[in-house]
């Protein structure tokens, strides 16, 4: 069993207040809070061995380089990649997806399959290419229509780009099945793992996806770091992404050759401190264990779903059978932003808006939603407060 009180002590921000009330942070899908170990890793880096990496030969730089690469090794093992050459550091999920969109070669007439529940970060990079998007529809419960999916393939299909879990509906998609079908059509699959990565074990070999993208800041790590996992043979074939230091082998005034993987895709001085601190976040997750994390977050999900369903005029959107600890809802007569502000006033942080998923808002015919989302530090008591505050909102708008 998880000792939540002990875990909460690892997160200094949970001692803070908002509008004078103890902070109740229910917005982990937006960005997670950070444990002391992660914050300390950043401080420790800057105070003890800050140096540019891969470039200098002195001790500080060797140490920084070693620890930067150690994060890569840790992630490789954590997601069960075959080689550290398959782990590329980016700024975040968004950049990871853009990297694939710009470095694989697409041409007009190509088609890419996405779903109605994609985050803008897994739509716009493809739209920018001028290719045609084919859309997997979803049910009213918020589940993918796999039958329709199978019929979207044709000779122009170049890629499937699909989220592992929806940041709005919480739905966990059956990635293994999806990749299996795509591979039958010789089509590569990119998985947007921004939401799933922090909350369930990811095994890229088992999923058999070709690319997997995620962000550190949603997984208890610092902002400014993300990862693109890619199968080596695909990465080898891709053209370089950004040009600059570190990604080259040789440069003349007229031309250049590329460094080997993964450096080919890491131009310029990277976000050294935060990559190193991300290692501490991964270790924190490991130390708690996904079994515990999932049990706890599923408990919170069920507890909160029941509580919220008891509120008159509240409608939960997204009722898939497999969900992360994410609940989006609307209330009759109260706009999501007004709910957000009333909760804010009570010290409760939730997200209200389109959640970077406008097409999904349209699908459910709402302008916006309120979303609560859980991390390992949340408690049932916090959900009780949420429920009370929502009743206050009802009263004010009655």
């Amino acid at each position, binding site marked *: 069993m998880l000792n939540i009180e002990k875990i909460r002590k690892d997160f200094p921000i949970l001692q803070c207040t908002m*509008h004078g009330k103890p902070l109740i942070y229910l917005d982990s899908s937006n960005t997670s809070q950070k444990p002391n170990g992660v914050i300390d890793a950043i401080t420790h880096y800057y105070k003890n061995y800050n140096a540019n990496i891969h470039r200098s030969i002195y001790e500080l730089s060797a140490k920084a380089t070693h620890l930067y690469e150690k994060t890569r090794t840790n992630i490789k093992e954590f997601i069960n990649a075959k080689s550290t050459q398959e782990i590329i550091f980016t700024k975040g999920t968004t950049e990871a997806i853009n990297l694939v969109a710009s470095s694989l070669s697409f041409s007009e007439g190509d088609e890419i399959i996405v779903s109605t529940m994609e985050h803008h970060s897994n739509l716009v990079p493809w739209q920018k290419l001028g290719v045609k998007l084919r859309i997997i529809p979803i049910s009213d419960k918020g589940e993918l229509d796999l039958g329709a999916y199978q019929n979207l393939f044709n000779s122009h299909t170049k890629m499937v780009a699909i989220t592992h879990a929806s940041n709005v509906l919480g739905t966990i998609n059956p990635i293994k099945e999806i990749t299996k079908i795509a591979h039958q059509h010789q089509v590569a699959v990119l998985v947007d793992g921004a939401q799933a990565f922090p909350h369930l074990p990811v095994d890229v070999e088992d999923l058999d996806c070709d690319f997997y993208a995620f962000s550190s800041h949603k997984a208890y790590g610092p902002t400014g770091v993300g990862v693109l996992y890619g199968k080596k043979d695909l990465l080898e074939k891709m053209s370089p992404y950004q040009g600059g230091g570190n990604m080259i082998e040789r440069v003349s005034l007229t031309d250049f050759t590329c460094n080997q993987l993964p450096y080919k895709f890491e131009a310029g001085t990277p976000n050294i401190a935060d990559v190193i601190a991300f290692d501490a976040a991964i270790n924190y997750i490991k130390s708690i264990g996904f079994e515990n994390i999932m049990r706890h977050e599923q408990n919170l999900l069920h507890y909160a779903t029941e509580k919220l369903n008891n509120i008159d005029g509240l409608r939960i959107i997204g009722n898939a059978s497999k969900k992360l600890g994410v609940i989006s809802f609307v209330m009759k*007569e109260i706009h999501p*932003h*007004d709910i957000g502000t009333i909760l804010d*006033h009570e010290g409760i942080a939730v997200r209200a*808006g*389109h959640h970077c998923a406008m097409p999904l808002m349209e699908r459910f015919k709402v*302008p916006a939603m309120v979303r609560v989302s859980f991390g390992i530090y949340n408690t049932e008591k916090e959900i009780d407060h949420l429920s009370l505050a929502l009743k206050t909102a009802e009263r*004010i708008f009655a």
Partner: protein
Amino acid sequence: MSDLRELYQELIIDHGRHPRNFGKLNDATCHKEGYNPLCGDKVTLYLLEKNGVVEKIQFEGSGCAISMASASLLTECLKGKTKPEFEEIFNAFHQLVTIGNLSEDLTLKLGKLAALAGVFEYPARVKCATLAWHTMKEAL
């Protein structure tokens, strides 16, 4: 809850739910759309101007109580006003929600609009409260 009532005064909830001067104005001399991509609030203002005076003003749109109430109160307040008069009120209103502590004089001038004073405590909502106002500024 007490100070929540300061933000969500009856007046705001009333205007949010039953916005005045709502609907398209067919004889408008000018209309302008405002949009806040962050939260999806939308407002379209319709004006009938004659000799520099706003003779009629209506709006359409959707959004939170604060943006709807603010648009509704704006239409009530601006009917019959000139551009310089609008600008004076705009400045006072902007100060009310972004800087707070308005002089008694100015508060009086704002009339019902002073009900939106509580927004000042919620900086992220200033955009909601001022959407119609910025749209109006562009329209004139």
